[in-house]
């Protein structure tokens, strides 16, 4: 692989993503854990930039780092002990089996389409710009149905949340 900006970027963002991930599972401090998670998600945003999808990168930062990070922070604040967690999760066998299964699924899911017998066709249309992305979302030949379904689902979830949180007396 030639040493150019993209390669360096790939290495840096890989380190951020994987290092952040390791940080999340090893730290004994919930708050630092969320910070590591943000580092990891930031690395993923970097990958989107490398894949020339700046819109997704910005959304990644906005939605995950901006909103979810703050949600996690609030959740952390409401738990009893943030920094001194003594209890350890010690059931090694189930977690080992679970992670091995997940790893195998990912391994086959990624390697089989690439190195397997038949190469899958490349994505039907190359999303060149944010404008194309927007058109693809609302075009009747594009993804309008999934888009609408997702919107309805989100609206329903929001109404449900409001309904649950509502004061009974009001």
């Amino acid at each position, binding site marked *: 692989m030639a040493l150019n900006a993209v390669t360096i970027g790939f290495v840096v963002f890989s380190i951020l993503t994987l290092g952040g991930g390791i940080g999340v599972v090893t730290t004994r401090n919930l708050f630092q854990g969320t910070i590591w998670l943000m580092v990891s998600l930031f690395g993923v945003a970097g990958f989107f930039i490398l894949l020339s999808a700046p*819109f997704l990168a910005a959304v990644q930062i906005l939605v995950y780092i*901006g909103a979810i990070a703050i949600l996690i922070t609030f959740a952390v604040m409401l738990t009893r002990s943030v920094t001194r967690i003594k209890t350890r999760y010690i059931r090694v066998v189930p977690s080992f089996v679970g992670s091995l299964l997940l790893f195998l699924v990912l391994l086959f899911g990624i390697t089989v389409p690439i190195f397997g017998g038949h190469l899958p066709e490349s994505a039907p249309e190359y999303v060149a710009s944010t404008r194309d992305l927007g058109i693809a979302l609302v075009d009747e030949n594009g993804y309008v149905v999934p888009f609408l379904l997702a919107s309805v689902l989100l609206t329903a979830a929001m109404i449900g949340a409001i309904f649950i949180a509502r004061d009974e007396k009001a």
Partner: protein
Amino acid sequence: MDEVCTGLCHLLVESGADAGLARFLSLLVGVLLVSGIPLITVILLIWIERKVAARIQDRIGPNRVGPVGLLQTIADMIKLLSKEDITPTAADRVLYNAAPLVSFASVVLIWAVIPFTPFHFGVDLEIGALYFVAIASFGTLAIMVAGWASNNKYALLGAFRVVSLLVSYEVPLVFALLVPVMLAGSMSLLDIVNAQTGMWFVVLSPLAFVIFYVSAQAETGRAPFDLIEAESELVAGFNIEYSGMKFGMFFAAEFLHVFTNGILMALLFFGGWMGPLYYESPLIAFAWLGAKGGLIYFTTLWLRNTVPRLRIDQIMAFNWKFLVPLSIANLIFISLALKVMQELGISPRDLVSAGFVELLPTTVVLLLINGAMTVYLLGLLRKRGQEARRESMAARAALAQAAD
């Protein structure tokens, strides 16, 4: 990646430098300029802010260090730098030290996408407006981290207040930001400015500008939304444990953020560098942008020094029960009216390249819609105010009766 080599880079190549090196050097100069200009500006901004505040409060303000006190900020900086750098023993060392940096960086990074003139900008991102919103979320994060890492309950409580304020006011801010994006059909700040050749967006939707202005004032934590600091009633909020230059970084970030918002509003709503003769020279264009941004900046200072602080419940109620519905309604009405007018043939299909005369009917209709909304809202507010007053009068009367 495009391999363009113009300006300084071109000059370097002409004088015999290696093409790659020349490109790197010119990029480096660009990055240094874009990040350096805000750093220099903030020194001046602090002086301006103090002078304006002093004038409004019938004082003189800094006037001892240098001519008309111009060097006061430099002296303050030296003082801050020479102060003892204290880190509380129980603090989370890394996060505690990182928070002020992130806070300041979140403001400086905005300048990367701000076009100073039609030809001078850090980078013209296709997602400029979204980038601004995404970067702003780092500022919120920095405050939360600062509050937690200080390991002080007052800092944490202060951070809670701030985060709830910032997260809430981001919603109307983004909805107001969507209006210029929709009118220009692009998220690039350069495109948004260029789309205002025919008509400034503030004329097409004054309400969007007002919502953006109010939310931006809240995002920077300025009065009447200054419960971030609330210097007269709180110990200091999230930055209570910070001292020296780390404290200074938070403040510099706030001062710079206010001015950055002024420039952004000039770009989004007031046609950026558009003005008589702006095409003659980039310098004139830059001067126009500076003048417009500076004027908006001045009004925010003015507002800051004249209005009292609101309570946190009032701030939240104002946002969720008033600003958010208003911003959503504004967006829906404008997009609906535009589509209807385009179908009727009143407004041009291509809003971006349409001239002043072509846009005139559109402007009148949109202005009327905005005006009608404002009249309705003012009536609504008046009614609510009267009801609240009547209730409090009744409550007082009942109390007086009970006392008798």
